[in-house]
């Protein structure tokens, strides 16, 4: 029995390796298909494709754009991972981002924003607002049986429109008619970590968030309960776990992350102010990150790194060539399809080799398990 931990670890590494290879293979296939699409649609397909693959690292500034995306994708990926692990399909990150951003904006533009409290208070307000906004679909589900997908999507619209409305009417702005607020005072804007790039304090927050979410899920009893509820809510009830409390708290915690992301947008180097529709649909891309990362918090930043690269590559390709950024939709669609289906290397092998060799020697590791 003494050798079991070693086998445990070995098998865990095996799983990680298998999953990683699967994701990379999905990426390769997706890129191949994209290349074919570009080949048929572009006048200069090779140049466009080269842009897609290399543009993010072409300059220091573009590296900054890439890392900024990675940071934000990481947070939204974590927010989705949290609810997915509890098997709740709340889609509310986008709304939480807007509500969080609004809260941060009110703090930043208040007298307090000009003091040292501008950053910590802004973040706290954003996270609280996001948490409340995440709590709403949760409690509506627990008390009224409202489907969380529907209610969270509705709340997204409300948040976006509320933000829109307040920017136009209530919040101070440099001149009438523009759709942005005044710039925040410097004390309320995250300092840049690398000068002249968008890489700012948000990077640190993202790293901390990864560790905190991982710790919460795998080292606390709340996290274990949450995962048990996600695997089998009936069993959780039977064990004496209050499944509804766990569901609601998972959505609330995820909401706090969404709120944090809102503050990172408006208080970050990118904006330093509130603009309508500032989020540009990024929040939803956390779904892809979470799916590919299998809702594992430690895998989220790694996936975000790859995906952020493609995302920036596509946007730069859009600017520099005749291929629109929407091509990236092809890549993401294929990756999601491949990763979430049961596609495996066996499948690929069979594609290329119709009569695979059947009989192989019994696996050596087998002996150790007995």
């Amino acid at each position, binding site marked *: 029995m003494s050798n079991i931990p070693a086998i445990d670890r070995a098998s865990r590494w095996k799983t990680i390796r298998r999953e990683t290879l699967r994701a990379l293979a999905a990426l390769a296939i997706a890129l191949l298909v994209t290349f074919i699409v570009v080949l048929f649609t572009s006048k200069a397909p090779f140049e466009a494709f080269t842009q897609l693959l290399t543009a993010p690292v072409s300059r220091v500034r573009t590296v900054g754009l890439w890392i900024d995306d990675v940071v934000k994708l990481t947070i939204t990926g974590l927010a989705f991972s949290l609810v997915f692990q509890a098997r709740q399909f709340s889609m509310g990150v986008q709304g939480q981002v807007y509500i969080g951003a609004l809260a941060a904006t009110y703090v930043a533009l208040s007298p307090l924003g000009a003091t040292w409290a501008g950053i910590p208070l802004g973040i706290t307000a954003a996270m609280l607002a996001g948490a409340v906004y995440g709590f709403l679909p949760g409690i509506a589900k627990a008390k009224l049986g409202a489907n969380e997908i529907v209610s969270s999507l509705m709340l997204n619209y409300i948040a976006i429109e509320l933000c829109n409305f307040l920017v136009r009417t209530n919040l101070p702005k440099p001149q009438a008619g523009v759709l942005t607020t005044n710039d925040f005072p410097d004390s309320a804007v995250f300092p840049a970590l690398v000068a002249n790039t968008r890489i700012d304090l948000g990077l640190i927050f993202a790293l901390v968030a990864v560790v905190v979410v991982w710790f919460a899920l795998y080292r606390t009893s709340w996290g274990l309960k949450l*995962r048990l509820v996600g695997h089998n809510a009936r*069993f959780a009830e039977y064990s004496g776990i209050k499944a509804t409390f766990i569901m609601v708290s998972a959505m609330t915690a995820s909401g706090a992350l969404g709120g944090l992301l809102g503050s990172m947008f408006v208080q970050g180097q990118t904006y330093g102010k509130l603009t309508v529709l500032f989020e540009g649909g990024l929040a939803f891309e956390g779904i892809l990150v979470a799916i590919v990362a299998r809702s594992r918090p430690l895998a989220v930043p790694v996936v975000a790194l790859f995906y952020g690269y493609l995302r920036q590559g596509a946007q730069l390709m859009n600017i520099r060539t005749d291929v629109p950024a929407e091509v990236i939709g092809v890549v993401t669609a294929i990756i999601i399809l491949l990763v979430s289906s049961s596609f495996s290397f066996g499948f690929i092998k069979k594609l290329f080799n119709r009569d695979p060799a059947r009989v192989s020697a019994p696996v050596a590791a087998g002996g150790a398990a007995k």
Partner: protein
Amino acid sequence: MALLEAIGIGKTYPGGVVANDGVNLVIEPGEVHAVVGENGAGKSTLMKILFGIEQPNAGRLLLDGREVHFANPREAIDAGIGMVFQHFSLVPTFSVYENVVLGSEPRNGIRLDRQRAIAEVQELSERFRLKVDPLPPVRALPVGQQQRVEILKALYRNARILILDEPTAVLAPQEVQELFVAIRSLVAQGKTVIFIAHKLPEVLEISNTITVMRQGKTVGQVKTSEVTEKSLAAMMVGREVSLRVERKQTDQSECVASVEGLRVVNARGTEVVAGLDLNVHAGEIVGLVGVEGNGQAETLEAIAGLRSIAEGTITIANENAASLSVLERRGLGLASIPEDRIAEGLATGSSVAENLVATRLNDRRYVRNGLLDLKAIKAHATKLIEQFSIRVGGPSYAVGTLSGGNMQKVVVARELCEQPKLLLVNQPTRGVDLGATQFIWRTITDARDKGAAVLLSSADLSELLALSDRLVVLYRGKIVAAFVNTPDLTPETLGTYMLGLSTQTADEMKAALK
């Protein structure tokens, strides 16, 4: 010539569990071939290989003497093999006939030919004596009928060889007999059946040939006519197994749990428990006897706090429990082994260690200040794996990778690793092998001997008769008879009450309803 032959099959799962190791199987046409062996012996794995779900690492399959490879179930189905799984795979919201034809629908142009589908399903069900109404949704059917749907599904795809993986584990005795009638009619019409079961009397009754597996290997193949229950058991386990349990004399004066005027109404508004009065004392096992669906499961769930009650009181350890949460009841010393391990007894995606600690997340030994003590949780799991001989690679393996019987052991281990005050047990040995059945019976009896009050429900009358001190018979949610268990109490006596053919008077019951 053999119809289907497996030669030297080897299968190692990712993670290193050797499930099959040089397995041989020879199936003759037109026979009922039983495959028996302990939990985790590799029976289901072998069947999954025959059906193309798992790929062997070694060995060959011959069908009609020709070598075949099944890359997926589709290819196996096309070759005439059908399989009914240990855990069903029907679409609950689809109707019976839709489930049967799903994937091979009769078409009218591009539309499903509904009339023809219904007619064909009806025709099949009459021909093979598998009575089931084609119209209602599958989720409205009892398990026994769902199983018939599974069998029909295989037959609809022209299966010549039908694999039934532990079909009787979920059936009541009456339903088992009905299944056997169907199997005989299948064989009479030229089909071949591979049948897995743990209950040897069933195996002896229905099969012609038996293959015995042990620890991933085939021990041998015998003609059913040439073995006895004893010799077969010895072949399976490698030692003699006796299923008798000795019970100690216990002090049964303290009433641990009592139920008064309990009424339970199910989601459809029908009364399933209709005014039940029952006391369970420390140191006794009370058997709830009844045809499935007469209120046994609901009574147990109501006491465990998993089902709301319409009326009545529930007292556990002198506390009014009706308004207590599951956790608070567990805190009073309640433990419970649920009927359906997959649906409510386990989280199959979680690890064995996590499943074993799930009911103890308020216990300072495993959780302090909201933080998990991973070392203690792992040690706890390792200890229980050893103590309950659960066959698994290690504490961090997902429960879903365990064999059916080993999953059950995880549930039993979790509920019985500490002495409970009140133990609720429903179908404790469903799908569990002989050795493990003996062990689980022993464990439940030990809990009783040490003073636990036990309420036991089982579809298996021999289990109830072997374990109980007293028996109460439920019919339509009411107690219709009660007995003190004595050697001359027979299944036949119980049967007449179970079917509602007779009822004891209050006076007759009194003695056994203390």
